[in-house]
């Protein structure tokens, strides 16, 4: 169950490339794990390390202090590709808590929201403004659904209302779903009756 997330203020790390897919976020060869923790070391692995395992000194992800950069500012269509939840697990474990982009893939969005990692979609002008001021702290206010840069903004962003509530209150979604168990059982009974009912004449 994710910890509640209400507001987040941090410098942004700009990765302006479009279409950062989940194979970039965590390469498939690390998916043989049976754990969801500890994947931060594998985040953007092939961007950060050479084939022999040595760190690439020029890689920005090796140069920043992850505790100072909680927010990723990424190019269009972030998180596309495979449905691996290992992607938000790895980003979260590395230290990121949110990504801002001009569009974010569906399954990534769904996976991220379940792991206390906030996907925020903004228009191009807002994106450009944030990218031009990477060292200025940005605030993502989930309660108000706003992004603010210093005294600039606020810029509203959309988030599915239920997912927002879950993040704000730390709601356990599986627990919430289980409350529908009577309706699920009734649905199954009705389907069973339909299947065994005699053919209408």
């Amino acid at each position, binding site marked *: 169950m994710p910890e509640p997330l209400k507001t987040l203020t941090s410098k942004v790390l700009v990765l*302006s*490339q*479009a*279409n950062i*897919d989940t*194979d*970039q976020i965590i*390469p*498939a*060869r690390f*998916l*043989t*794990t*049976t*754990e*969801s923790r500890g994947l931060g070391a594998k985040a953007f692995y*092939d961007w950060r390390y050479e*084939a022999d395992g040595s760190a690439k000194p020029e890689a920005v992800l090796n140069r920043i202090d992850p505790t100072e950069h909680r927010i990723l500012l990424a*190019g*269009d*269509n972030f998180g*596309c*590709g*495979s*449905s*691996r*939840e*290992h992607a938000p697990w790895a980003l979260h474990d590395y230290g990121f808590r949110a990504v801002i982009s001009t*569009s974010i*893939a*569906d*399954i990534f969005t*769904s*996976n991220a929201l*379940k*792991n206390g990692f906030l996907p925020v979609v903004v228009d191009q002008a807002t994106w450009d403004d944030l990218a031009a001021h990477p060292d200025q702290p940005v605030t993502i206010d989930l309660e108000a659904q706003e992004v603010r840069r210093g005294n600039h903004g606020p810029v509203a962003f959309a988030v*599915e*209302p*239920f997912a927002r*509530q879950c993040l704000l209150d730390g709601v356990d*979604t*599986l627990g*919430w*779903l*289980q409350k*529908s*168990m009577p*309706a*699920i059982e009734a*649905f*199954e009974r009705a*389907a069973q009756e339909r299947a065994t009912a005699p*053919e209408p004449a």
Partner: protein
Amino acid sequence: MQQPRTLFDKVWDRHVVVPETADTPGVIYIDLHLVHEVTSPQAFTEIESRGLKTRRPDRTFATLDHSTPTLPAGLNGLKPYVTPEAEAQVHRLEANCARHGISLAGWDSDDRGVVHVMGPELGLTQPGMTVVCGDSHTATHGAFGALAFGIGTSEVAHVLATQCLIQRKSRAMRVTVDGVLSPGVSGKDVALAVIAELGFGGGTGFVIEYAGGAVRSLDMEGRMTLCNMSIEAGARAGMIAPDEKTVAWLKGRRHVPSGEAFERAAVDWLTLATDPGAVFDAELVIDGGAIRPMATWGTTPDAGSPIGSRVPEPKSDSDRKALAYMGFEAGQTTTTQAVDVVFIGSCTNGRLPDLRAAADVLRGRKVKPGVRMLVVPGSEAVRRDAEAEGLHTVFTEAGAEWRIPGCSMCIAMNGDFVLPGQLAVSTSNRNFEGRQGKGARTILASPATAAASAIAGVLTDPRVYLTEAVDA
């Protein structure tokens, strides 16, 4: 009178357990849950930590495909797993299935295969169903008029525990591919042409219905290839209305009803087609007659064009980065650079007609020396059928390797991979940087194109080798 509804509406409506409201998503019932070793272990851990069981093991089916070696056990009887972790992951699924009473198409099963090849083959996938799997290519099953989509591991836990998902309904898009496809043009070429048109994120937020004469003309395997790649345009699912081909393909499969029950089911399936006048949130129409054999030149699946056409000028830094990675230059064609590896397989193109198409090109010819060609059937059933027809001999006599089923070089996590810098022509679905191995460069294409490229040693339009080929 009821509003005209789309295929998607009809399947959706049948599965609403709790309708969505402005504040809360709906609860949707899942008919079929497919499971593999990579995206499930954490989900089993999650439900067990809560003292929960798999609620409907009878609606849950598992297979081993991603981490599994495609070479047989050695003389010592040991399977050549790439790492101890890969082996442990396989054993974990075996143990989880045993504990939860879930059928597993394991190592000894004649049913084992890549999850999206196996499901339809066994008749587990049926029209009108909701099908999910912790895998983005679950859209494959939409070829049967099912609503099928990929989910994350948290959602795998949701389905294991409740047989339901918390969902909001996506928007609906219709992609109509009209006209008659030319000889040598396959479902893969249609898929690459559609994705090139929509763009990599163009389908985000949508469920796509594929319609039109060219789509209808595809066999079920071609339709699966097309639906399979819906995610490569960002779409959650792709669907095709069931027709007589769908019914004929499913008849007699193990999990499909038989006798009178089948006749009743078939009548119902045919009612699922989109009603005339139903409205879509977006529409795209493509002239199928104009589609040529396609291949990608970039590092996203939408970066595709007819084989032999020129690589377009880059429009962004991302485009420039993609071209630099691929080693291609704008204004040139991609048909001159030596190909190192050819891969035929995956849930996109690892079915019997795919192997036949490749064998038809290869028969009596040789893979160019220096090219490594790997053919990996999508399932044990495909392997049996292909061997019964002698396709494996065509491949091995041409100089290709014939393997046992698995995802293999599609995702490169089992030890089958393309070396850094090597250029591969692959029938899989993703050409991302490093997808087929660190530093690997991937061209996506059809099985016939892959085979033709293996012979020529460069990316090649397969119609060169097809006697009855007609050029436009």
